């Protein structure tokens, strides 16, 4: 299929196809085939067997405002006591993820919730991965500087050895409205950037006016 595609492009273009086009084709075909090969897990089929709690460490509260790059989240999880321990026989690891609350998903298709967990974009930020034990574990995580400003909750997926999700738990309710954490992001601007921008802008305008002035002076001299 790859060679057919390349031959087709060759016949359209009169110049030979550059190397990078062929590479792009091969890469994307490989990606396409890989994504089609994996089976998809549906979120609606997962049971909520884990109990998850998250606290903003500096304030000792479970919902509020956290600062990116500064605040820490203390996340603890364990198997819900109302389930028998045997429920967790197939669980190998627990993946903790930071997920967008619905209010931060409005008008942003790249954060959309999809029942097919391969296509789901709700929980794109990974926090930690820990080995599963029924008595649970906890972790402290500093909110990294690349976390966008939005409203979040924490979800834990219990996964098997291949990484397929088997069960979950989350800090909020089913409607995802309670217990939410707001993260205030970093701006990304630094003092150096501000200064450099000012200097380069000034150079551009000054050198232009200088040049034009010089040319008009020169032409006045020759026309005299």
């Amino acid at each position, binding site marked *: *299929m790859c060679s057919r*595609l390349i031959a*087709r*492009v060759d016949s*359209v*273009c*009169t*110049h030979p196809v*550059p190397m*990078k*086009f062929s590479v*792009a*084709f091969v*890469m*994307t*075909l490989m*990606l*396409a085939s890989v*994504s089609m090969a994996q089976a998809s897990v549906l979120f609606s089929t997962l049971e909520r067997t884990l109990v998850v709690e998250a606290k903003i460490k500096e304030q000792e509260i479970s919902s509020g405002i956290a600062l990116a790059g500064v605040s820490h989240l203390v996340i603890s999880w364990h198997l819900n006591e109302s389930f028998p321990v045997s429920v967790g026989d197939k669980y190998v690891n627990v993946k903790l993820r930071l997920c967008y609350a619905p209010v931060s998903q*409005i*008008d*942003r*298709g*790249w954060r959309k919730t999809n029942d097919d967990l391969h*296509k789901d974009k709700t929980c794109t930020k990974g926090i930690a991965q820990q080995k599963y034990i029924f008595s649970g574990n906890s972790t402290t995580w500093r909110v990294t*500087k*690349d976390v*966008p*400003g*939005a409203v979040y909750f924490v979800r834990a997926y219990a996964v098997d050895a291949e990484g397929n999700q088997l069960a979950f738990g989350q800090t909020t309710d089913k409607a995802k409205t309670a217990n939410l954490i707001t993260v205030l*992001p*970093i*701006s*990304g*601007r*630094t003092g150096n*950037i*501000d200064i*450099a*921008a*000012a200097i*380069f*802008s000034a*150079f*551009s*305008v000054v*050198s*232009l006016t200088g*040049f*034009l002035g010089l*040319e008009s002076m020169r*032409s006045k001299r*020759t*026309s005299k």
Partner: protein
Amino acid sequence: MAANSDFQEGNAKGEPVFQMTMETVGEKEATDLKGRKFALPVDSEHKAKTVRLYSVAAPHMRTFHLSWIAFMICFFSTFAAPPLMPVIRDNLGLTKVDIGNAGIASVAGAVVSRLLMGTICDLVGPRYGCAILMMITAPAIFCMPLVSTPVGFILVRFFIGFCLATFVSCQFWMSSMFNSKIVGIANGTAAGWGNMGGGIVQLVMPLVFDIIRRDIGSEKFTAWRIAFFVPGVLQVMMGLLVLTLGQDLPDGNYAELKREGEKVNDSFQKVFLYAVTNYRTYIFALTYGYCFGVELTVDNIIAEYFYDRFDLNLQTAGIIASTFGLMNLFSRPLGGVLSDVVAARWGMRGRLWNLWIIQTVGGILCIVLGLTGQLGPAIAVMLIFSFFVQAACGATFGVIPFISRRSLGIISGATGAGGNIGAVTTQGIFFMSSKYTTEDGIMLMGIMIVACTLPVIFVHFPQWGSMFCPPSKATEEDYYISEWSKEEQSNGLHHASMKFAENSKSERGRQSPLRSKEETVVVDGV
């Protein structure tokens, strides 16, 4: 006058367009204002008769290279944000509406600046026009690293977008430096290679971003800001090069020519009047909106489209998106070449048919692209679609130089502005809200392309005809002299247009030998 007919016979022998050797036998050597000989063979207006891509000889080829590189860097700056959009939208908390507005803003500013640039080129010359614009918009690029709100983002993209008017100075410069027989290929190559900036940027910006993050160790939200210094610095450097190395016309700069009396100061009102009263201006502004406007729209949405619909990472989406713009390396020049090749046989009527066919096929392929759901086929369709859309742009500017000689600047500017209006409209209707998914938007855009290309059927030149109608008895001189009033003609202001009319007789194609023999006799008798 005898020399003129010599020139014509020489041209009819089928001179190769891309030459490898200098021919000096049997041709009067032309000189510019300062008495220097030209490196390339020139016609009676001192415009070059060939394009030698490997040469940087002043003034023709040096201008060619300065012009397309300057335009390419402006394209680069205008579309520097889209490949980094996944990072920027997280940093600034943008919504789909904000991104849509910024995309529209980036091409909307150029609507006004392209119209103004046409006038500026007519009045002070393309060299000043191009350089001043580039260096005035560079501060806007340096403001992008300072942006922290969606409104700031939209405003900065709006101001950066003004520099897309260098397209007009580029086309104006090519039409002033190259003979009408090869104006299609000169315009197409310069503009096509310039448009490649929209493709190159999709590769370069993610790369620069990556290097800054890995090697300097900056945070994501700082790294994209530092990356923006690259287009800014390039633009300032290029502006300075254009000022120091560029030249307005084959004979010299506007200021020198005005002093020597070789260039006449034209009146803005007259130039403007002849542009707005020519109906062809409006038709081509509309059709250009649906080839170039579509190209701008796709430059804005394609990386995010592949990133979101096919779940690729930033670098991969950037590589695929870049191939769209990079096709310009040969697709837009080929559009111009096809226009010239078809004109040699069928004249202007051939150029019009060529344009209509290429653009309509592009529209059909756009519809197909929106309907394609698999990654591999989507890339293939996108590449073929990009070829036709960009070739249509090249073909359009094979026709524009013939609409008017006096108002070439304003008409080029109006067409270019039309391209941007098309981009603004298309993005506004189909890619702003969540009403249409991006793939539906692409399909509907294709339908609009086909519909808005139909007006080409109504373009009629009295001396050459139209798609469905043959020419009348009018001549090229009649058409071009009609732009000058009796008073202006008695003052001898129309001589440049007459030279152009003579050179444009090639647009009759190879079908009316009797008519041209008559003309040659008349010309000899003057």
